[in-house]
């Protein structure tokens, strides 16, 4: 019954996908569910290898707040022009829309590490699938005990959240040389409404409104590209790496589901860490 109510809050386009994913919900073992439904849906019949030597995933075993589960992806291979991780997918099996995001990286990333915060709606496996530039897929998974992350009311009131909608903070932590990967934090003020949250006043479901794509360029070259979904926590926050090589301008372009585009630039100098 609850599922049906929840579904009515989603736009029609989604409905098919979500129904497809929820349909055989029941006592199926986690891995059966993955192999029978999710893997074919996202990766068709491509083989996926064990990721233990390629990609790591750190999550809390029991999350303190299902709406904000800190998650860290760690690469175990260097990003070289010859061999690098080109794509990462983060999937939370039990979420109404399991794919949290698809991230595209380049050799320029320096290392394919990433940190972000996700929503976890029910006790669920969380998986990262990495694709290397030779087309091979690798997967690592963790189990996270958390719940209610997709329906939890927003942490701050919606009115003030909408006032600062699209504000972006970017910060880079420079190393000794611009030839090393620098950690870059991208913080976006956006309520990332899932469509499963109720309005505080009317208690009706609020239509979904979330960040759907993020592109970060350095001097015109794309260094980080993400397609994101409702499983990203409110106020999306990403930490990723790139090798600047020279001083220049970082540009983040964020687009949400209402077609709003937010742009933020930051100068990167060869000296002290620049701040926005």
């Amino acid at each position, binding site marked *: 019954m609850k599922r049906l109510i929840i579904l009515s809050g989603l736009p029609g386009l989604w409905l098919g996908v979500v129904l497809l994913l929820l349909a055989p919900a029941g006592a199926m073992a986690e891995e059966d569910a993955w192999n029978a439904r999710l893997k074919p849906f996202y990766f068709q019949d491509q083989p996926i290898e064990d990721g233990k030597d390629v990609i790591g995933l750190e999550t809390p075993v029991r999350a*303190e*707040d299902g709406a904000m589960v800190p998650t860290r992806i760690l690469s175990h291979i260097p990003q070289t022009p010859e061999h690098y991780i080109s794509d990462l997918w983060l999937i939370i099996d039990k979420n109404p829309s399991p794919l949290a995001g698809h991230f595209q990286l380049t050799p320029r990333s320096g290392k394919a590490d990433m940190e972000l915060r996700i929503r976890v709606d029910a006790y669920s496996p969380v998986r990262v699938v990495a694709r290397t530039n030779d087309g091979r897929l690798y997967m690592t998974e963790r189990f996270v005990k958390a719940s209610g992350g997709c329906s939890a*009311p927003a942490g701050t009131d919606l009115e003030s959240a909408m006032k600062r909608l699209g504000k972006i903070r970017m910060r880079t932590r420079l190393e000794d040389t611009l030839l090393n990967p620098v950690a870059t934090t991208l913080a976006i003020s956006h309520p990332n409404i899932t469509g499963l949250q*109720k309005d505080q006043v009317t208690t009706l479901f609020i239509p979904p409104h979330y960040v759907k794509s993020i592109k970060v360029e350095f001097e015109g070259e794309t260094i980080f590209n993400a397609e994101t979904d409702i499983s990203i926590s409110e106020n999306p926050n990403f930490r990723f790496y790139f090798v600047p090589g020279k001083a220049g301008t970082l540009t983040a372009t964020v687009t949400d589901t209402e077609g709003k585009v937010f742009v933020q630039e930051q100068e990167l100098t060869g000296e002290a860490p620049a701040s926005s």
Partner: protein
Amino acid sequence: MNRPALFLCCLCCLQPVLAADCQPVEAIQPGFYARQGQDGAVFSARNIANTGFIIGTRAVAVIDTGGSPEEGAALLCAIRKLTELPVRYVINTHVHPDHLFGNSAFRTDGVSFIGHKNLPRALALLGETYVQRAQEAGLAVTPADLVPPDQTVGDTPLTLDLGERRIRIEAVGQSHTDNDLTVLDESTNTRWLGDLLFHHHIPVLGGSGSVNGWLDTIRILERQDAGERLIPGHGPLQTEALPALEAERGYLEHMRAAVRAWLQEDKPLAEGVDSIGQQEAATWPMAQEYHKRNISYLYSELEWE
């Protein structure tokens, strides 16, 4: 109340009232009884919240009803051992299930349920989830046990007359939740703070709460200190008012400053949850259960302040 009566009452009621299915209570003031909850996480433990009641010459007012209809019934049983007077008012200090899932035990004609003006909304937003989680934890709770207030309190305090005894109910701004209220027993100058005060129990920030708002509320309570005795929502009922508030304020201020400093350096949440304020938190009972989540909530609140 004359002196001999007061004396007698204290004599007979300092002893816990024990009986099968009856909740033991202690007299914290003449005609004002309470049961101290035991430390435990919501849903996984029973009898967590402090609950109480005040007896006038005509009526009884209940403050918080416990975490299940069964706990509510045990509280009602304790009341029946002490007085024949009807329960006219049931006051819910806020929406949390360990404080109000006992409501349905009191639902009869002539009982008025009272809550903060935001309580109906909070119940509508969260009630269904609370029932589900309570059921998963094996509690006999149904949606019918979610009893919304008949009367709400907003900017104007509500005064109730229990018969030669007046109690004053005041709503506060966003603090532990966005629907906290306090109950002052005027005749004994005793104020029930619900979860605005945690005593010998780590302060717990609710999902709809605000550390900034809570600290404002604490400052107001400290400033208006009128020698009131303060009763916490969790922890020992015998509080020394100001030191108890001060300890709570110390924790919240420390953690707010630490999280702000963390955010200033753009450090990630994952490390913050594992490291911020560990040492300071360790001195509080129930830190294991709640400290990390407090940090996570603080992070959300303060990130874009």
